[in-house]
């Protein structure tokens, strides 16, 4: 394992220290916790958003702490859900009296740990609501799975629900708009290789020189199937078909597109994928209103990408285009 790290056991702590050194104008770290919150926390009279999960998804989630997105981000160990006491601390630090919305990605561990924190916060008389993001169409949403996973589409929830909170909406309204985004966003990813969790020291799965992993989550775990590598256009078409099978989008409707790098994918390749996404949408006469290309929700140094499609209406469009100012997502 070749990595630019010190001790594998300290990667999360040291990373958070580096984040705070880099972005003191946006955020601060809660002493003794792996929690980043807005520098101006708590903000009185506004609903606060808290998200988080395992580390290794940077810039998620700390990179989205700032105006118009998250108020707090909780960082677990690498690819491991954070513990409830950490989440609770984030909730307490950001609550400005109007309540806190937890944005949880649907993984058994994330859901359980955030739920426990919500129960604890309720005992402290903090209003807490939660939404569970499950945008990954690779996984069947059936009784035979733990339900669809939450992946890169989560960033759209941060952005849009964050904008709604910034507008001064109530907790129930912010939750409602977050749920609307969840209903309308679908994602799917693929990868050319695995990544290495520092503490584990070896790859999560092994692929042949001509194989790719299709439909994988964001925790370095294997996907739903292995395939022979094809062209970027073919893989893009395959992912887009799965996504568009799952969500009805009519001619003339508008969407936002996110082509997300998993960590080691050159931006060049992401743009090549985006070219094909645009071509497919043009053929279907679906209008792309916003496109985001880059590393938004990564899996350490995984060489792969995911595509997320969010179906827009006027409300979502307005909130998506609202101002945001965070270390990793800025928009005028």
């Amino acid at each position, binding site marked *: 394992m070749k990595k630019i790290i010190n001790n594998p056991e300290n990667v999360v702590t040291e990373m958070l220290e580096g984040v705070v050194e880099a972005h003191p104008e946006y955020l601060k770290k809660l002493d003794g916790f792996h929690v980043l919150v807005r520098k101006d926390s708590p903000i009185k009279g506004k609903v606060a958003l808290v998200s988080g999960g*395992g580390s290794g998804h940077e810039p998620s989630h700390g990179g989205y702490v700032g105006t118009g997105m998250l108020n707090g981000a909780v960082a677990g160990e690498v690819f491991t859900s954070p513990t409830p006491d950490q989440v609770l601390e984030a909730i307490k630090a950001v609550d400005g009296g109007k309540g806190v919305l937890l944005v949880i990605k649907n993984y058994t561990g994330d859901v359980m740990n955030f739920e426990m924190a919500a129960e604890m916060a309720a005992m402290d008389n903090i209003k807490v609501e939660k939404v569970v993001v499950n945008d990954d169409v690779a996984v069947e949403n059936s009784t*035979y*799975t*733990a339900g669809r996973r939450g992946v890169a589409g989560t960033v759209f929830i941060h952005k849009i629900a964050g904008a709604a909170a910034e507008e001064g909406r109530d907790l129930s309204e912010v939750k409602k708009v977050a749920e609307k985004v969840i209903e309308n966003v679908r994602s799917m990813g693929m990868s050319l290789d695995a990544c290495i969790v520092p503490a584990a020291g070896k790859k999560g799965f092994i692929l042949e020189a001509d194989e790719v992993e299709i439909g994988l989550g964001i925790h*370095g775990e294997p996907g739903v199937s292995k395939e022979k590598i094809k062209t970027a256009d073919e893989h893009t078409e395959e992912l887009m078909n799965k996504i568009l099978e799952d969500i009805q989008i009519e001619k003339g409707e508008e969407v936002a597109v996110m082509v997300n790098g998993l960590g080691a994918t050159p931006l060049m390749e992401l743009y090549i994928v985006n070219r094909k996404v645009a071509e497919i949408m043009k053929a279907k006469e679906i209008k792309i209103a916003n496109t985001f290309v880059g590393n938004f929700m990564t899996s350490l140094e995984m060489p792969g990408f995911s595509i997320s499609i969010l179906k827009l209406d006027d409300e979502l469009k307005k909130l998506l285009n609202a101002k945001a100012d965070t270390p990793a997502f800025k928009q005028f």
Partner: protein
Amino acid sequence: MIDNKKLLDVLNNIGDRIIENKMVLNDLDTAIGDGDHGINMSRGFTNVKDKLKDLEGKDCTTILNTVAMTLISTVGGASGPLYGTAFMKSAAAVKGMESIDSKAFLSILKASIDGIQMRGKAVKGEKTILDSLIPAYEAYEKSLSDEESGTKALEQAVIAARDGVEYTKTIKATKGRASYLGDRSIGHADPGATSTKLILEAILEVL
């Protein structure tokens, strides 16, 4: 009969076995999950062992509650809340008791199952912790009702847990991260079921 002194020995031994088997559990989780179950559990039990030092002379409920809180606040992932809740419910199950006899241990097993099901909403056969814990509980109960000794009953429980782990190899996961693999999860033992088996073995060793 486990008094509060012995309970510390038991928990220390559980910690040792889990930490020893870090890589084993990790490799199992690499095959069908995200390769961190060993890291998570051994991080948790390293902290538990540390906490145990300050618990000499405390009652069983306090000890088990401390273990619960330590696991909840240091394991993370799916296993943290699950094992944490199991220990928390176990602490409640022995509330007021000076020591844990075989009947109390039966109620610990039952409380653990209840706690894990409350949190994780799984049933038997979904390739989880429950697939070694429920058979272990059933074997322990049967052995006691056959009027065998607590030690004998625990031996039966361990055997049942081992069989449970073997059984998990034959089934598809429908809960937890491994469920995303669909049929690809078949053929691999479940990490959580395995760590539960290790815990039961570690208890038996000290009795």
